């Protein structure tokens, strides 16, 4: 099957999902959308043919009423536990291998696989995955109650601990290190980078990677690392090219991704492999971030994570997605 048709199928699935979620407005919206699209298509002339599949699904969707019961279960935390409660989990749809929507429109990835295992063990909950591609927005959505859980390979930060529920047990491990150009390969810690006066690639405000730098500066006010804040979600991957091309000196980066993006032969940034070096030096557990008032959910997830860690499942799943066991590396660095 060609790529294009994959995308189209993806769209059909996707649109259908959206429509299912909005029962109350479904019919009207469907009609308006169809009307809109018809007008849009006539307006667009030559470039219109490609939007036809989307239009078809939208007209088709209103006839499907079967899922009425799922979406009525809204976030009501007092609901009795024998009712199956739907939990909305938001994540970026393109964070391979962490969480992503594949060509068939299905969620997959390390965190998703772990959550599915947990979901199976918790009959009182039903996890529903929602796409949200801006980290700021996703976290806000969890504090406003739009979602119950956010996925972002989240590190511990004091603020997250204060504003959300971080389960006692970690969901993954994401050892960190510095990406350097080969001539600076001997600079591997934040302290050395600060000593050398290196300038870090801009960091996403409120992000876990940024927190590592902020925390270091808080503890070392006399010898801080130099970095600026910025906005796009693509910052941390842009940083690979920024460092390789000499635009910035270094960047803090998760080992799990470095392996797969730069070291791996087919990695998206393998072209820079010769210019760069990387060494993991900072251990870093990751967590699912759960809404503040969802203590019960948080405890349940935490308990399951403990079990999965205990019986080796987490490490197994992680090795499958990352190609190595980050938990081991983390434990090693901890020493």
């Amino acid at each position: 099957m060609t790529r294009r048709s994959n995308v189209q199928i993806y769209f059909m699935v996707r649109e259908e999902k959206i429509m299912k979620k909005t029962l109350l407005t479904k019919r009207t919206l469907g009609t308006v959308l169809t009307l809109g699209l018809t007008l849009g298509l006539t307006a667009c002339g030559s470039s219109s043919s490609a939007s036809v599949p989307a239009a078809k699904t939208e007209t088709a969707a209103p006839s499907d009423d079967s899922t009425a019961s799922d979406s009525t279960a809204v976030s009501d935390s007092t609901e009795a536990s024998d009712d199956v409660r739907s939990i909305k989990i938001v994540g970026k749809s393109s964070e391979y291998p962490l969480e992503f929507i594949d060509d068939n429109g299905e969620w997959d990835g390390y965190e998703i696989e772990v959550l599915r295992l947990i979901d199976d063990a918790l009959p009182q909950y039903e996890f529903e995955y929602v796409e949200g591609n801006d980290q700021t927005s996703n976290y806000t959505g969890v504090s406003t109650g739009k979602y119950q859980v956010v996925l972002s390979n989240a590190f511990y930060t004091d603020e997250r601990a204060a504003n959300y529920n971080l389960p006692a047990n970690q969901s993954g491990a994401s050892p960190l290190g510095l990406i350097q150009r080969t001539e600076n390969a001997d600079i591997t810690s934040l302290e050395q980078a600060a000593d050398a006066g290196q300038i870090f690639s801009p960091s996403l405000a409120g992000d876990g990677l940024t927190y590592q730098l902020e925390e270091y500066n808080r503890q070392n006010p006399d010898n801080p690392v130099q970095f600026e804040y910025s906005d796009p979600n693509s910052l941390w991957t842009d940083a690979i090219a920024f460092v390789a091309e000499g635009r910035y000196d270094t960047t803090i980066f998760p080992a799990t991704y470095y392996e797969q993006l730069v070291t791996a032969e087919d990695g998206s940034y393998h072209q820079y492999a010769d210019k760069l070096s990387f060494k993991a030096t900072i251990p870093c557990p990751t967590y699912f971030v759960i809404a503040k008032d969802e203590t019960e959910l948080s405890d349940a997830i935490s308990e399951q994570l403990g079990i999965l860690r205990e019986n080796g499942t987490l490490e197994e799943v992680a090795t499958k997605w990352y190609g190595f066991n980050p938990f081991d590396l983390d434990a090693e660095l901890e020493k």
Partner: protein
Amino acid sequence: MQIDYEFIRRALPDIARYIPVTLKLVVVSFLISFPIGALFAWINYKKVKGLSQVVKAYMSLIRGTPVVLQIYVIYNVTPYILASIFEKMGSEINVYRLDTTWYAYLALSLSSTVTIAEALRAGLETVNKGQFEAGLSVGLSAKQALWHIVFPQALTTAMPVIGNVTVELTKATSLAFIMAVTEITGRAKIIGGSVLRYFEAYICVFILYILIIAVLEQLLKLLERKISVYRTGKHNYMSVKAI
């Protein structure tokens, strides 16, 4: 969710400290786009061969693409192009050490250049041709007639649009944080991110933009009144100003 009013109260002054950055973005971008816009207007007005087509294509491109897209292109592509140019010239200048704010000025001025060019050209069209000749007849040089007679009149007609451009520019600075320039929106995201109170931080930004632009509009009104002494005749259909 409960709105944390205490946070808003504390964050507002902190974010407001970055108003100068926002204003600097507006002013510098405007100063870049005005002369270029005027030049483009002149090229289009005179229908300079070759140049006029290039300018038109450029204007159409900028008008036809979202500002965010322009920002990404400027921020992610220009440095590499500059670097390779400097490298070829054998220059020692390190492009990458350039303050990123310059990319912001450049990216933000693209759209306003186009709008200003259009407004000024329309302004030029409305100035009666006789005005220029009248200038010549009283002994002014062509240059003088242009600067002292035609241009001020064109400006009066274009003024409402230029006011709009400034307002639009101010709003567009909210995107500068994409280019690592910490202005008010950026600051709001940083402190919102540091305590994970993004929503409240955005409310602060919302309040600040309203204040900034409200003041700006009053200033523009004053300016417009000042400039309007140059207005002649009834060519003021341009003053159909939205909102």
